[in-house]
């Protein structure tokens, strides 16, 4: 991140954007979560000084900002690595070995849950259902989905991200919705097509999303 922890976050374009967000709501306090997202996007985590800035913008106390931010799992109150790896171990993923997958990942990268690798690249967290149960087991890297993993694939995926960067790996291997097995004629006769999609790469390029 280009910002230092003490730099002011809400200046120039970001301040304008913050004001625009506040105007979307009849009561500007509703902008608190969106502004915390802006802060985290800019500074890498929810900084103390940034929370003070938000308090000033919204006319509430810094304690109210922290008291709200600390309720939500996405807001990180301490610096994290370059990438956040969120591994779902909820039931549908557990049934396909997600807890073994996660233990294996942590062992491979010699790191504990909620901790960052020594090189600062990955912070790991175990998360509740990521809403990709049709592609279990799954994980998210910076909230981008990767599905149909197994312990070996997951390690290899993260090594790939470390070597080649997230955007290119996600374009090749990530997904929007669970890609499902292609329908054979026999399957077609048995039921309608399942709804899902192929890899993100088929669609992301056309619409310019990464």
């Amino acid at each position, binding site marked *: 991140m280009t910002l230092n922890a003490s730099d002011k976050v809400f200046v120039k374009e970001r301040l304008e954007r913050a004001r625009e967000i506040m105007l*979307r709501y*009849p*009561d500007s*306090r*509703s902008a*608190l*979560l*969106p502004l*915390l*997202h802006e802060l985290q996007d800019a500074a890498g985590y929810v900084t103390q000084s940034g929370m003070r800035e938000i308090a000033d913008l919204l006319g509430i106390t810094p304690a109210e900002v922290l*008291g*709200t931010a600390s*309720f*939500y*799992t*996405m*807001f990180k109150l301490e610096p994290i690595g370059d990438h956040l790896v969120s591994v779902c*171990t*909820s*039931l*549908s993923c*557990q*049934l396909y*070995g997600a*807890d*073994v*997958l996660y*233990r*294996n990942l942590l*062992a491979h990268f010699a790191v504990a*849950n909620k901790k960052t690798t020594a090189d600062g690249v990955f912070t790991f967290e175990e*998360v*509740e*259902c990521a*809403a990709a*149960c*049709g*592609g*279990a087991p799954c994980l998210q890297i910076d*909230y*981008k*989905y990767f599905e149909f993993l197994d*312990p070996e694939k997951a390690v290899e995926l993260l090594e790939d991200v470390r070597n080649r960067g997230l955007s290119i790996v996600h374009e090749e291997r990530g997904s*929007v*919705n*669970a890609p*499902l097995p292609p329908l054979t004629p026999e*399957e077609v006769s*048995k*039921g*309608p097509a*399942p*709804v*899902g*999609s*192929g890899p993100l790469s*088929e*669609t992301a390029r*056309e*619409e310019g999303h990464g």
Partner: protein
Amino acid sequence: MAELVLTRRMLDRPHDSWTLDAYHEMEGYQGLYRAVREMTPEQVHAEVKASGLRGRGGAGFPTGTKWGFVPKDIFPRYLVVNGDEGEPGTFKDRMLMERDPHSLVEGILISCYALQSEHAFIYIRGEMGHAYERVVRAVEEARAVGYVGKDIGGTDFSCEITVHKAAGAYICGEETALLSSLAGYRGWPRLRPPFPAVKGLYDKPTVVNNVETMCNMPWITRRGGAAYAEMGTERSPGTRIFCLSGHVNRPGNYEIELGTTFRELFERWGQGVRNGGRVKAFVPGGASAPWFDASKLDVPLDMDVLGKEGSMLGSGAVMVMDQDADIPRAVWRLVKFFAHESCGQCTPCREGADWLEEILERMLDGHGRPQDLDLLFDVCDNISPGLNWPPAQTTICPLGPSATAPVWSTIRLFPEEYKRLVTGAHTSLASSAPAGAEPAGVTADA
């Protein structure tokens, strides 16, 4: 087979179903124009009532009836769309937002017209970055051509839509918690009454509806409520997206007519249990629902029938476990979820869910005691007295009772699996592989 109401477009146009151009080519926004140009708000409301549509978020309350609770003469009033999908096993709203965001936007506009609301909010689960981007873009596209904003379709109906990104808290799927969160506070549920329809967002009348519920509105407005009511069963009309996961050959989201049986869902759509196995247990309607064993396979997917059978269709999440599944382990994982997601306001839920998790974890770790089953029942009973369905509640919201449902329902269905844990024949939680996984040969503890 009924017509596909919700998934037709993404199946026909898998590569661009989310764009305005594609949506226009598939009858897009015709329902909106029909509503605002040819119908009164009361007529739109009447069609929704006639459709018999029931909310797709979990509770299954009739949508038209819910709309009727808004006081007639209080303005402004708000529509808030619940896109905070987080019930374990549920992944349909994410798909709708990613693949068919314009049907959501159109459904919202139609609903706002019927409710005479000029401002809607879409509260989207923060972890669903792609869904958020697609919905934001759809609203922008719709605004650019005049569907969102002032004087829609040349009429005097105006409507603004604000897309709101949440930040990670399952409890915000509960409507009063969602409204607290949307107002910029911790996602704490509050007691009802007053109900949000009377006193909701900013203390104004507010209707909270689920994403899938909204996506039905364009079809109902185009084709009429009576046509919708012809699909499904009398008390559970229409189609629904079921999120099928677990040990079936083909997990995925399937839109099917209500009234289909679980057996059909598993065999026709899911292509049967993996490796030719058999169903041992299944969760019929999300993590909060009491479980079923194979004796319930021929129960139809019908909200009222499920209620009579002692569970619920809930969020539409159906999770299947084969003969090798470790039931207490699976239950422990759901209880862990509820313990993590308890907002902490009510003691029975905050403390009880934690204790349920800890007791189950101790049992799975090989330290089960003979009195543990009674203890589990006792803790459950303190959260939800009587252990019945629908559950009694000692808490502000249903999360507490939900934490107990997997526990007591499976102890009753599979007592031998729990007794195994209290008589010494056990495996350690830390070192045992879950059913279906190859042991990875590592012992590092998560």
